[in-house]
């Protein structure tokens, strides 16, 4: 068996984040091409889901490290443990979610063990002649796609944005759950975790949403977001915002979409009263369907839209709401695994 494909899972608040299944599925595809195995690493204190679920998404082995020190995220301990596991397992590839966790731990691992790391990949494949990992990521605000290789260093490591790959169909499968025990060196840390405050109830992470309704300066006033909330509520969507609306305090920072905010990739994205500056587009361009409403016929947002409505948003959005209320069969139900508040 060739060296393995390893997955670093995202486990937050005692729950496996769906991106872990997405990455396990992708790792399965890669491992099949390489004739190697998928090793999934889980670090937690308590867990709602069964780690065995990971076998049904493609894992051959699941490494479990259950310890009180994982109750709250400590990047130093995660880095120590991942570095140790990589030395022990010698995988040829390591995949991690491009979340605040993965984007903190993996670069520290790369710096520690001296290997390459490609951030925010949107495509992964194996090059046939060389068996090297081809890592594709957007660059320059998503206007260019760069394909990157790690020719000589091992493992080849990549972080991947949530929702980039589909969660595979569950299959019936089983495998080996292997415990991994921490030694005192690994738990050595100068970081003291003082507190964790979850988002207030109702405030959700828009990156987990299938539908996002975003507003910009064109709303003209804070109350404009009330209208957008009506639209979002019908669709059980989240609210996004352009930077100037955040600066004007019409909306809070966790809702900002774009270069200096969040990168989102929902199934449906509404850009309402947003001009389409490159910095905003960089955060939403990979959405499946983009709908924009703008009264300026030359607005750049139209260039990246599937549905471009040119007119006053205060005319058009109420009509959308009315039509949706009339036509939607039943209230949308939250799909499994989407949110874990």
């Amino acid at each position, binding site marked *: 068996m060739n060296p393995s494909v390893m997955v670093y899972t995202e486990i937050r608040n005692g729950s496996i984040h769906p991106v872990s299944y997405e990455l396990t599925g992708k790792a399965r595809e890669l491992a099949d091409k390489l004739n190697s195995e998928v090793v999934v690493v889980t670090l937690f204190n308590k867990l709602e889901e069964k780690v065995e679920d990971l076998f049904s998404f493609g894992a051959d082995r699941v490494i479990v490290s259950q310890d009180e020190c994982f109750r709250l995220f400590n990047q130093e301990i995660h880095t120590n443990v991942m570095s140790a596991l990589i030395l022990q397992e010698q995988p040829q590839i390591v995949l991690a979610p491009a979340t605040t966790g993965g984007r*903190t731990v993996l670069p520290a691992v790369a710096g520690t063990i001296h290997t390459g790391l490609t951030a925010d990949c949107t495509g992964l494949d194996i090059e046939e002649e060389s068996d090297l990992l081809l890592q594709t990521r957007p660059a320059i605000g998503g206007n260019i796609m760069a394909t990157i290789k790690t020719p000589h260093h091992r493992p080849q490591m990549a972080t991947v944005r949530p929702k980039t790959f589909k969660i595979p169909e569950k299959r019936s499968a089983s495998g080996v759950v292997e415990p991994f025990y921490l030694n005192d060196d690994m738990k050595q840390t100068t970081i003291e975790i003082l*507190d964790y405050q979850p988002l207030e109830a109702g405030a959700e992470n828009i990156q987990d949403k299938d539908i996002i309704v975003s507003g910009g300066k064109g709303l003209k006033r804070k109350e404009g977001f009330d209208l957008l909330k009506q639209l979002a509520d019908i669709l059980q969507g989240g609210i996004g915002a352009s930077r100037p609306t955040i600066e004007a305090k019409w909306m809070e920072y966790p809702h900002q979409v774009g270069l200096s905010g969040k990168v989102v990739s929902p199934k449906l994205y509404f850009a309402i009263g947003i001009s389409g500056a490159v910095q905003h587009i960089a955060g939403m361009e990979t959405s499946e369907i983009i709908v924009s409403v703008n009264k300026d016929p030359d607005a750049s947002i139209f260039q990246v839209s599937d549905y471009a409505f040119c007119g006053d948003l205060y005319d058009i959005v109420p009509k959308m709401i009315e039509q949706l209320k009339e036509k939607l069969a039943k209230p949308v139900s939250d799909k499994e695994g989407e949110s874990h508040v």
Partner: protein
Amino acid sequence: MMKIAVLIKQVPDTDDVKLDPETGTMIREGSGTIINPLDLNAIEAAVQIKRHRKDDCEITVLTMGPPNAQFALREALALGGDEAVLLTDRKFAGADSWATAKVLAEALKKSGKYDLVLAGEKATDGETGQVGPEVAAMLSMPCATYVSAIEHNENNVVVTRTVEDGTEKQRIQFPCLITVLSALNNPSMPTLRGKMNSRRANIVTMTSQDLDIKSEELGLKGSPTRVVKVTTPQKTRKTKRYSGSQIEEGIRELVEEIKTSVLNQ
């Protein structure tokens, strides 16, 4: 005396950048350079700590880049930096995040013993966000990323990390590295005195010869990752436009698509 280092990067001014409607790529010609916006927040954080310590603090700004990156350093000095280090050498060219971090980490070792190193969470051009944590790992320092508040004490900092589902508070002992978000503070403008001082200030230049790095670990040659292909994604969206009286029809089509392909009703 507390010593703070701030890592800054000179990046193209994206405010000047326009999209080419044909190819969808950025038109960079004629656009100037600026300090990476988040690095301004890092500088401001350093200046605030220095003020809080009644000047019992020294701020060194470092950058790796072409010779003209000295202008970014001068601007940082005008904003309150005390010393500046320019890491410039043709051999550094083509560095990926690992090779960039290697140069910065060795330069930090050479230029002083820092209590605190500050960096931006990510740069607007490379957009990897990896340099900060990699530098920290190479210096065996703990690293806090995505920091939106810093409370500083004699031997440690208490930072607030803004993560997907909430906020974390961590106390980290010096020496440590912090990468910052724009929510941390509002960068101030350079003062007149700062500007005058910065013009006269001496910038320390270091090349590969000043650093303990093997030549095979420098620049493109020393980069574990290689860009092997660059493509401009074909725009696949066929934009349907609706205005005036077509809007009602457009909404009907949209609602139909939402029903069938988004909500699967």
